[in-house]
């Protein structure tokens, strides 16, 4: 086994975005492992909520879906979706949301709906699920995604989940809370500047600035103080491989 895989680096990097005491809306797969890793390391008071309505979940094993019974057994509370979305998410009670998608653009808008024309798509994707709500109502969102030119167009084909649409100020005026905080890829970490445009903040040891630019659909600004991502510690890797994803479902 290598000391760490690309996915394991993304997981450990994503975990660092979480602060102790944060309430986070968790997705399955990689975000779930990142949240559980944070909870077992620097953020023991992390509160995990799933859009299925489980509040303060404490899963005994890796959930197969966001509706897995392990998310309800031993949770602090379970509520109908009208409430997980209404009383929690829309009410601003969730700090961090994880988002996925097929495309993310310069303003952090995410597309998980269609590739191509909406009415005659090349690829029909699953759609929003709760993503539109998560992007609109959490205080900060984090995206974890492979870094390829197709996934990073200058403008997405369909805005499923609004980022800094028209800039940070415009987002605020639209009544949208928070906004994209970080995009964690297999090449680096991207953040958003004062105007709401994505820039390169850190590069993973395995990658270069040129490679990142090559995999991005527009001329990407690079931070003056662009840093190198810290590699996973042996303790983090042991937690992931032994406890959080022992069958390597998401990390191999």
């Amino acid at each position, binding site marked *: 086994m290598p000391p760490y895989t690309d996915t394991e680096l993304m997981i450990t990097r994503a975990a660092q975005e979480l602060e102790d005491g944060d309430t986070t809306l968790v997705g399955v797969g990689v975000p779930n492992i990142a949240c559980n890793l944070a909870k077992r390391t620097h953020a023991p008071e992390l509160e995990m909520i799933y859009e*299925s309505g489980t509040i303060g979940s404490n899963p005994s094993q890796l959930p197969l879906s966001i509706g897995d*019974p392990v998310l309800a*057994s031993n949770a602090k509370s379970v509520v*109908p*979706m009208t409430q997980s979305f209404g009383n929690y998410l829309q009410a601003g009670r969730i700090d961090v949301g994880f988002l996925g998608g097929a495309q993310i653009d310069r303003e952090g808008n995410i597309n998980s709906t269609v590739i191509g024309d909406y009415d005659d*798509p090349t690829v029909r994707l699953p759609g929003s699920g709760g993503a539109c709500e998560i992007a609109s109502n959490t205080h900060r969102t984090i995206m974890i995604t492979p870094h390829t030119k197709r996934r990073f167009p200058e403008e997405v084909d369909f805005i499923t989940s609004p980022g800094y649409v028209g800039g940070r100020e415009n987002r605020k005026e639209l009544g949208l809370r928070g906004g994209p905080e970080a995009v964690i890829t297999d090449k680096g970490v991207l953040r958003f500047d004062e105007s709401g445009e994505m820039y390169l903040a850190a590069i993973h040891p395995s990658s270069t600035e040129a490679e990142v630019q090559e995999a991005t659909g527009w001329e990407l600004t690079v931070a003056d103080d662009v840093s190198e991502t810290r590699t996973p510690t042996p303790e983090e890797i042991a937690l992931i491989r032994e406890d959080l994803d022992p069958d390597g479902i998401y990390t191999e």
Partner: protein
Amino acid sequence: MSKLRDMEGAIDAAVEDGQTMYLGGFTHLIPFAAGHEIIRQGYEGLTAARATPDLIYDQLIAAGCVDDVVFSWAGNPGVGSLRAFRRAVEEEVPHAIGLEEYSHFGLVTRLEAGARHLPFLPLRSYVGSDYIEHNDAIRLLENPYDGPLNEIPVVPALNPDVAIVRAQRATEDGSAQLWGILGEIVEAAFAADTVVLSVEEIVDEDVIRSDPNRTFIPDSVVDYVVEEPYGSHPSYAQGYYGRDNEAYLTWDEQSQSHDGTQEWLDEWVYGVENRREYLEKLTPERLLDLEPKTNYATPIDMGEY
């Protein structure tokens, strides 16, 4: 008044060609047995509404029962795509389907408006997204109060002709208790004109009345009750059985071609009379592996006054 039927009788009485149908359950308590019976009875032209179409709508689409899908997330949860759904959208196989698309909160809010007999309800989604442009049912309303918001999106009530929902236990007349993930099950039952309730177990009314705060679905909204153990397999019933992930992976494999879906339907739906025969085709190991350990909730004292 007992509303007990077998699944065949309940579906026959409740469902008609061309209806708008909502099978409730967000990943949990999905009414698979009912869905298979709908396929067996060969309904056509259904508008199939559901936040997460899941395997059950993929199978209904593959079987040709569905003309339109109203949804918010069309995937095989934790596995990947809904291949029959995509084939219908992208290649019109077995025939084209129409889509009406929301986000999760939008769709459950539509049910809530329906349950409350309101024409619409507001929500703080869709602003800044491309939904409003592509779905005429999502509209903007002026905020009549002072405050930072000038406009707010609204979604219209959804009142399905028929809803089919699952619960762990109910009386013969349909007062039902459910626990674990509730999803949008209760809102769907209140919003629909006709409701089929399918449960793991029928219990005495005393059981229900001993804990009224857990009775989320009252008999007054239920038309037909079906006792159908394992009726949510391969999804799950909290406290009764877990999700059978093998079935989700098998469907992913089988549904790579339209022919593959037909083979699967022939074996698991058309080839069996009812859910009992379906279950008999599973191996005992497979059912045993789904059983959780017992884990009782700390009881409460309602008091006798």
